[in-house]
């Protein structure tokens, strides 16, 4: 597809450089290219072309020796990613090897990485929710962290803009705490979910259960096909039905003729020119040859993922910025956040034994936040709030393992669907704590000679108090919804499991306490933009990717307009 910059020396100067090609990098590339800027996308991993590089997309279980499981030998190189429980033979090639970016965990922190063109946009959960002013005002109201420099109105139209192009399916219900998106038709709830929804909404006024809002096409859009309910998304989608950089934004960027992608390009540091007082380019290590190269541009977009971007900024030192580019506030690397996860309840549903469904819907249900949203719902047990994801389905043959039976009849009975089961699991907001941080260890270098990262972060009292409530509410909702054999659970274990890492180069009004301004520019180096999760000032309790898309599109268009005005 794109121009690939293989001959590094041929062309070292572009209008714009985008570091990273995941969800936010893809959007930056698209917007900048469409505005006419010659744009170089630096990708630390290999090229992954849409469809062509999805070798496992049609595998059935019996097509691989271990029926989709990954061999212990293969997982050895990916012990950190393997902790997710999501890594198997059919998607292992999209997960990074540990030695590509080693880090020290002062406290347990699972950092999931996908180092290839498209990054984690090939693996993400696709849940897309707008933030509201409940989120943007939270820091200002309770005093944790600094105030966001923007409000919902600043980003509202940009949400619509990215939603129209990405394709978000869902149902509009008009909740102030969870603004509706521009929606494609919603996916359907199944029989049991419809019943549970009715009961929860009746028993708990103010709580809603809706179909998940997701970046899956429920009707064709811009030449992409609609979701076929195969639920093999993490191998790459042959229809381009879910949003990924590979299927959506990078092809659009490429269609302009302005895009160049350079793979195997580790961004080592941003080059700061002391006289000009701005960034002039990016120093790159070719990860295969270890050759060091310099690329130049008028603007630089950092989209290397929350922690990756901050690692790059910390490593970009100069006389002016001894502690990392744009780190006048000392906040660079601090306020790392994630969502809590894996706390909830499950149970069995009696009824609908003659009902079933068709398709493996890559989506579930969502229960939007209902605590601390107004005076009536305010609790003194914790600040902020949480929402739930979940869903219902019928058990399959796997349920046989626990049945006290064996033999021919047992085997043949397992051919039929088993009990209906329903579960919900909470996602809670995490406060921005200064002491939750990433830093560089200059004594321990990676295989390219770059300082490695130290991650020192943990959930604290407020998050644990929310988790407690998540489980209590989950059990209560399932009880009132008539489920049986209810089991509450709390499987929280350290940060990173939500794979929603945010913060470490936060936006803010004051350069003394934040790294980025209201349009994602580094306060002191206005031609460097950070629009991935690193920019987040608080974490909300909803999935963040849609907000990265909107912030990126907004910042990229601001960058173009500032360039035209010769302000950068």
């Amino acid at each position, binding site marked *: 597809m794109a121009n690939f910059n293989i001959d590094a020396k041929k062309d070292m100067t572009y209008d714009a450089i985008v570091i990273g090609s995941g969800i936010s990098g893809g959007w930056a590339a698209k917007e900048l290219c469409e505005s006419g800027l010659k744009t170089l996308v630096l990708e630390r991993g290999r090229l992954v072309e849409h469809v062509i590089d999805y070798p496992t997309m049609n595998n*059935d279980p019996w097509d691989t020796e271990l029926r989709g499981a990954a061999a*212990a030998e293969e997982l050895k190189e990916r012990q950190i990613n393997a902790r997710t429980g999501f890594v198997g033979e059919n998607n292992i090639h999209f997960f990074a090897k540990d030695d590509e970016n080693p880090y020290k965990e002062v406290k347990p922190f699972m950092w999931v990485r996908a180092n290839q063109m498209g990054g984690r946009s090939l693996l993400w959960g696709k849940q897309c929710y707008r933030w509201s002013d409940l989120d943007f005002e939270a820091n200002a109201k309770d005093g944790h962290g600094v105030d966001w420099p923007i409000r919902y109105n600043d980003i509202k139209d940009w949400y619509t803009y990215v939603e129209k192009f990405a394709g978000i399916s869902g149902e509009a219900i008009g909740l102030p705490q969870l603004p509706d998106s521009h929606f494609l038709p919603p996916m359907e709830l199944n029989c049991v979910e*419809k019943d549970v929804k009715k009961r929860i909404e009746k028993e708990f006024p103010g709580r809603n259960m809706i179909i998940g809002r997701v970046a899956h096409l429920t009707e064709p859009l811009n030449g992409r096909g609609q979701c*076929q309910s195969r639920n093999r998304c993490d191998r790459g989608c042959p229809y381009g039905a879910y949003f990924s950089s590979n299927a959506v934004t990078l092809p659009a960027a490429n269609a302009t003729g302005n895009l160049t992608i350079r793979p195997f390009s580790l961004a080592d540091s941003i080059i700061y020119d002391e006289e000009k007082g701005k960034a002039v380019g990016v120093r790159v290590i070719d990860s295969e040859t270890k050759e060091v190269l310099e690329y130049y541009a008028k603007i630089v977009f950092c989209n290397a993922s929350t922690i990756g971007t901050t690692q790059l900024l910390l490593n970009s030192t100069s006389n002016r910025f001894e502690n990392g580019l744009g780190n006048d506030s000392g906040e660079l690397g601090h306020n790392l956040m994630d969502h809590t996860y894996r706390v909830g309840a499950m149970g069995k549903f009696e009824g609908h034994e003659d009902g079933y469904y068709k398709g493996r819907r890559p989506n579930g249900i969502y229960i939007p936040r209902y605590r601390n949203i107004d005076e009536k719902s305010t609790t003194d047990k914790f600040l902020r709030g949480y929402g739930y994801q979940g869903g219902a389905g019928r058990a399959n043959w796997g349920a046989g393992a626990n049945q006290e039976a064996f033999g021919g009849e047992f085997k043949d009975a397992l051919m*039929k669907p088993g009990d209906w089961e329903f579960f919900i699991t909470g996602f809670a907001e995490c406060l921005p704590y200064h002491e939750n941080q990433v830093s560089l260890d200059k004594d321990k270098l990676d295989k390219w000679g770059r300082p490695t990262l130290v991650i020192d972060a943990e959930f604290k009292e407020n998050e644990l108090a929310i988790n407690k409530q998540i489980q209590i509410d989950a059990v209560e909702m399932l009880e009132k919804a008539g489920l049986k054999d209810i*089991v509450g659970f709390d499987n929280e274990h350290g940060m990173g499991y939500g794979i929603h890492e945010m913060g470490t180069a936060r936006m803010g009004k004051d350069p003394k306490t934040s790294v980025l301004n209201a349009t994602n520019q580094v306060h002191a180096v206005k031609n460097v933009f950070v629009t991935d999760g690193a920019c987040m000032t608080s974490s909300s309790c909803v999935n963040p990717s849609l907000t990265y898309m909107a912030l990126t599109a907004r910042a990229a268009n601001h960058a173009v307009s500032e360039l035209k005005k010769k302000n950068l």
Partner: protein
Amino acid sequence: MQRREALKQTALFGVATALFPSLLQSCKETSRLNWQPQFLSVKHAELVSSLVDTLLPKTETPGALEMKVDMFIDLVYGKLNGEAGQETMDKGMDDFDARCKEKFGDRFADLSPENKAEFLKMEEANSPKFNGSIWGTAAGKQEPVGFYRNLKSTALWGYFSSEEIGLKVLTYDPVPGPYQGCIPLAEVGNTYSL
């Protein structure tokens, strides 16, 4: 590295024994196996074969042995479990047969069908169970379930994910199209294989 070497040696061993089947004869009598384990000892492979046959025998639908579930478990043991898992399973299999001998005077593979069934009933009653799981993670703290429950679970996996069962017995629907949330079970019949 050591592990790679071990695998290589096992593979060589496999070739050699294929050429000289008599080497495979176990200490007791002629081997019950009609396949060469790549990773399990012959004694353990015989236990696995007889166990999966008792758990999932042939009826109107194929049995576990026809679907080569024992050979699949050999692969799981060798390639999926890792070294620690292999040690646990070795010990589990030895303990299992020791209990069999204590109760019926013989290892499991050599018991009568009635004694095999009686022994498995005891195992069922005494084995801990799996927690429910969500998105591949056990809900709550999962206590070890022991060799029997683990093996049963792996046998079910091997059987129901095999090609013949997946394509011909269960409902195979690789490209379902738009999700339909509520349809009569009668329209589908057996559970989906994917």
